[in-house]
């Protein structure tokens, strides 16, 4: 079996065994379920930023598009979980195509600003249409609506396994992309888009496709988050939720399949433990991030790949 496949299956097996063997406390089980879904969001972000080299500051738009599409369809239209997730995937794909088409008319810093602006429009729209979205306060998806094939997704154990399944699906999509010719062209575009163009690749189409895949995975993660944790709120559409995946990817290693998971675990527990020590926990978080950046500027997994294991995808 290929080394890269063994690595990812092993990582997933560890996450499975931690639950099966009852090693997790309830607290960490809940944390990890959340981390896995958020890491799936990070995987989506990584495809655009880590592989294609496009830095978006508006990915909260895609995450919240999925979150609200599934949440609202369950809340207002009584959709079942399967229907709401399919709808969320469709809407995320549509929105990311549209945003991609418009935002790709710009490059570099302008691209960052344009994506940020679109994301802000989405955030303000959520607040403006409060009668439907319940604005800032958000809404809860009732436990009775969170049943999927007679599985109660509000049950912490089922929720953990579901989160693991969602994350596994996303990283295998990512792994497949990373190993495909398509993925290699994305990396080529990241490295030198002029050269990729002069090799005959339609760079704009590849970038657009990358945004659509990235946005759709992010939307899927958003939809799953709402359903698994039963809450849909405007805070998920704020700029912070565009910055988080960027941090997870940077810390874990941009352009590595498991990087977003490593980054999300690191960030989540760093904030968790630092906030136990002091109210000014952001100082500890900031210093820690500075240290990671200084000593592992390719991210934790990225640095390991660069120094020792070149085969890590």
């Amino acid at each position, binding site marked *: 079996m290929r080394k890269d496949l063994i690595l990812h299956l092993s990582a997933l097996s560890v996450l499975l065994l931690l639950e099966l063997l009852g090693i997790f406390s309830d607290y960490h089980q809940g944390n990890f379920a959340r981390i896995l879904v958020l890491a799936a969001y990070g995987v989506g972000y990584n495809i655009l930023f880590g592989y294609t080299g496009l830095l978006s500051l508006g990915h909260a738009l895609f995450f919240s598009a999925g979150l609200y599409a599934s949440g609202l369809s369950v809340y207002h239209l009584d959709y079942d979980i399967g229907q709401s997730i399919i709808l969320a995937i469709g809407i995320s794909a549509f929105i990311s195509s549209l945003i991609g088409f418009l935002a790709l008319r710009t490059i570099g810093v302008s691209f960052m600003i344009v994506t940020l602006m679109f994301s802000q429009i989405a955030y303000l729209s959520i607040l403006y249409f409060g009668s439907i979205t319940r604005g800032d306060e958000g809404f809860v998806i009732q436990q009775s609506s969170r049943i999927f094939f007679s599985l109660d997704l509000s049950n912490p154990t089922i929720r953990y396994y579901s989160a693991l399944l969602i994350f596994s699906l996303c990283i295998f999509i990512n792994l497949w992309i990373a190993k495909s010719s398509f993925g*290699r*062209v994305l*990396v*080529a575009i990241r*490295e*030198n888009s*002029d*050269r*990729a*163009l*002069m*090799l*005959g*690749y*339609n*760079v704009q189409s590849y970038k657009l496709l990358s945004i659509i895949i990235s946005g759709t995975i992010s939307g899927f993660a958003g939809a799953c988050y709402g359903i698994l944790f039963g809450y849909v709120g405007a805070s998920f559409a704020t700029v912070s939720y565009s910055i988080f995946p960027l941090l997870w990817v940077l810390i874990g290693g941009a352009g590595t399949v498991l990087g977003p998971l490593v980054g999300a675990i690191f960030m989540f527990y760093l904030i968790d433990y630092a906030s136990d020590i002091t109210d000014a926990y952001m100082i500890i978080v900031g210093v820690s991030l500075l240290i990671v950046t200084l000593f592992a500027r390719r991210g934790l997994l990225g640095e390991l790949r660069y120094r020792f294991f070149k085969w890590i995808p």
Partner: protein
Amino acid sequence: MDSLNNILLYTENLTKNFQGIKAVNDINFKINHNEIRALIGPNGAGKTTFVSLLCGRIKASKGKVFFNGVNISHLPVYTRISMGIGYTFQITSIFFNLTVSENVALALKNKRQEEKKSIVSEVLNKVGLIDRINQRSGDLSYGHQRLLELAMGIAQRPKLLILDEPTQGLSDLEIENFKKLIKKISATVTVLLIEHNMDVVMSIADKITVLHFGEIIAEGDKKSIQRNPVVQKAYLGD
């Protein structure tokens, strides 16, 4: 004589204005199949702008480009490249974080894995980089990076290969090898070479076109260009 069948690429009144300055002015240019053509001229003559217009990196202000009898003026870069125009940059432009073989493999679109592997080996053998096949291209010497760029151009199997100052930074030995290589590939590929090294130009070019202030001031074989007073004036001044 340039019979129409023999012409690979030609331009009609090709012009590029940059805010009123004519970088390329009304150029009518022809290049035949399997020819090695050198495009020379003093700095700022418009050579790179001209070849960028040919492959579509820059949009022309006026004029047309025909390739293999087809008007390609309106076509985007990637389509022109897919039709058989290869281009290597004046400043080394490779994928520094990828290995040598990955760089060359990227030049091979729509090929199966095995086919890619064999072409990569064949091309790297040709340019003398086969022993560096798994090396990160960013770790290669400058000369080797230039050769890798050339290898990527050759791997595309273009009908027309545009080389923008390919010998810049190469050692004497590498230049000698480069000349042999270009001679060899010209049996199947037409080469348009922008070059400042006159030794290279004089030893491999079949024909020379001289550009000055965006216009063709002379065109012909080596001897006629060497003797041409207009060319001498352009290079040496009054």
